[in-house]
């Protein structure tokens, strides 16, 4: 974990190049250090080589459930990293994307789900909540 005065390092993983470009610019403007990855391998290279403070992961990157796979490996690597899963498919597949209960969260191993298109204000609020000084630290086993 970086020292509190450092800019939080945020991993953003999505196969959509423009989503990455736009989110990178917005996160930089908001005072974060984004690290972007367009493939699962790139994402793993990033969190293997540096400590990240939060991850934003697209559910369907690379395969149907690429995002879940990435969550799993990230949790194995560092159980403390907060994860925000984003997806465009919630309404079509009928997946309920409010992981309010601990049980749902533990199955899917993400802290928050957000539906695309993302409102940056909402994302920013979640990032602050998850990385701030009073954020809950839950260890996933």
């Amino acid at each position: 974990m970086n020292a509190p005065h450092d800019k939080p390092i945020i991993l953003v993983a999505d196969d959509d190049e423009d989503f990455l470009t736009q989110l990178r610019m917005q996160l930089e403007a908001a005072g974060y250090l984004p690290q972007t990855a367009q493939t699962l391998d790139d994402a793993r290279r990033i969190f293997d080589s540096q400590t990240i403070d939060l991850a934003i992961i697209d559910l369907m990157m690379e395969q149907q459930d690429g995002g879940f796979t990435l969550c799993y490996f990230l949790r194995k690597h560092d159980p403390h990293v907060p994860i925000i899963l984003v997806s465009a498919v919630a309404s079509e597949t009928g997946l309920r994307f409010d992981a309010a209960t601990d049980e749902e969260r533990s199955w899917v191993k993400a802290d928050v789900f957000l539906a695309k298109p993302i409102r940056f204000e909402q994302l920013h609020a979640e990032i602050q909540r998850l990385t701030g000084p009073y954020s809950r630290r839950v260890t996933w086993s």
Partner: protein
Amino acid sequence: MKTLRVMVIDDEPGTRLGISRALHDFRPRLDEVTEQIDYTVTEAESGESAIDRMRDDPPDILLVDYRLPGISGLEVIEQIRQRKLDALAIMITAYGSLDTAVAATSHGAYDFLAKPFTPDDLKRVIGQATVRLLLARQAEQLAEERRRARARLIRVLGHELKAPLAAVEGYLRMIRQRQAGNDLPAYDAMLDRSLIRLDGMRTLITDLLDMTRLEAGRRDRVLRQVDVASLARKAIDTVMPQAAARRIAIRLHATDPTTMLADPVEIEIMLNNLLSNAVKYNRDDGNVLVTIDGDEDRLCIAVADTGIGIADRDLPGLFGEFTRIRNEQTCGILGSGLGLSIVERLAGGYGGSALVHSEPNVGSTFTVALKRDCSATDGSWTSSTGSSSQPI
């Protein structure tokens, strides 16, 4: 071998036995059905016991006597209709009057059999009912497949169109909010990306329209003698800008005769899709070779590239709808995922199929072998599931 269950509902044991015996070894020869059929016969003495047994042991064909103790044969048939059972009912009647027949069919009976009947009479009626039943089930299965494919189409459409929409919207907002300050080249980059994404949306929509038109069967298919080599030259011209931008060379090697009976638009769609892939998945300074040859019966088109190739594990299902191979090498490549399924469908209309041979990091060759004269066949489409459906 497919076994159909026949239930005989008659209070006369003699009749039940006779029917059982007659159908015991009956293997009908049916033109319309390819499977071998045989039958198992169950018996019931009354309508009530039949309805009871139907719940746990649903039959495919029922032979119901008009006169039963308790509820009548018509009642039983009516029950079958109401419960929407997937079965055909044949009414047995000793009084072969027109009234009875009409009553039976209005209650949902498929046919009737007048007593006294011979084993041959019985077999004929059962054979006809078998054909009717199996064809109806086949049609329902096709309809169900089509429904599922359509649902999937809508789901994927939603997803695949939302992403570029969100990208373009995002860039427009950033430009509006002057997020890059006075850095004009940065805004140009956003506008360029927006145009690329919009182009991707247009391709997807066009491909989807092509697909739905193909599924509905092309009423206005115009077959005439076409020169595939000249269509290939046209297709190469179309893709030249993209190829030239990456210094990819395209060559055509055609062996006469290069003519066939075809709808030129369909051949063009096939060529455009194959060439577009050959360029998109190629390396810079790479090559594409289009070969047209064949024999008396068939014309073969092969499009070979020196591109990133396809791994063995990605080959099955490659021609499926919306299949796109996503890996590190392909992540920047845009496409609808429909190109190859369109090619396969179109090739099917010429009694042909699409094949691929590929080696990762060396290249891929896609081949279609088309009948030069498809009017000799019935020109039916082959769907992606391999079953045939007639054009409307």
